[in-house]
């Protein structure tokens, strides 16, 4: 997986959470997910991507993380998972995907995206629609929350996978 396609998603996630949710993040060490479809978090937004590459982006939050993020976004305490929180996950996924697509388009790699779907429940599964390696970028959100970006991208006409170099971390 070419790391050129990973950094835009990483940068977008940091930007969205910082600007919209006033939340600082710390990026952890990326890793390949392996064969398990189980989510790392408690609620996930997933969106399909097509273009020169095809695949999907999943943005998965622990309950603690998303409640803090949504509380910050809305300016009022949000204490439990509900439809508003699920909607927010969809919109956050939409923003991260859109921002990343803008960066990739500027770099000559346009992608199209669908409208995100949200899945929640502890132990839920994330089924990326296209086969291929899934790179997971973990974040610490705020004091104790966790967020996981899952990026699954492959060439539209081939299934080549390259070993990634070390990803760029945000400043």
């Amino acid at each position: 997986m070419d790391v050129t396609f990973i950094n835009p998603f990483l940068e977008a996630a940091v930007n969205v959470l910082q600007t919209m949710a006033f939340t600082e993040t710390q990026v952890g060490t990326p890793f390949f997910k392996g064969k398990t479809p189980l989510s790392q978090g408690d609620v996930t937004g997933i969106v399909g991507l097509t273009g020169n590459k095809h695949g999907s982006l999943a943005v998965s939050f622990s309950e603690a993380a998303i409640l803090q993020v949504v509380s910050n976004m809305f300016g009022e305490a949000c204490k439990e998972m509900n439809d508003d929180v699920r909607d927010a996950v969809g919109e956050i996924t939409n923003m991260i995907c859109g921002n990343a697509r803008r960066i990739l388009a500027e770099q000559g790699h346009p992608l199209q995206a669908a409208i995100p779907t949200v899945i929640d429940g502890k132990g839920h599964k994330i089924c990326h629609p296209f086969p291929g390696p899934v790179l997971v970028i973990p974040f610490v959100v705020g004091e104790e929350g966790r967020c996981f970006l899952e990026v699954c991208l492959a060439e539209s006409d081939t299934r080549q996978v390259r070993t990634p170099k070390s990803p760029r971390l945000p400043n």
Partner: protein
Amino acid sequence: MTNHNMKIVTVDDFSTMRRIIRNMLRQLGYSNIVEAEDGVEALSLLQREKVDFVISDWNMPNMNGLDLLKAIRADENLKPIPVLLVTAEALKEYIVEAVKAGVNNYVVKPFTAETLQEKIDTIFKN
């Protein structure tokens, strides 16, 4: 000087963004705000009520923001209403298309209340 009593319609299929924009507008002193979930609902509202400003998302089901803009500009009664489009992507070709269709300005998500105020000021100064 922007009229803080002006009636503003916010259009987005995600209730989260409608809520965030509503909160930002209230923070900026605007309180006369109504909401629509997509372009179809927004257009129907515009044809029933006198609205002074439209803030619309771009990508929505049923009728997207660009098509809503075109419908507004095609209606003699609605044509003068200023429209601000909200987008997460801001792809060059989309911006060009929106400018051709008569958009007054656009803002890229994520944005702050200060950025929203700047966009509003730019629209109403012109």
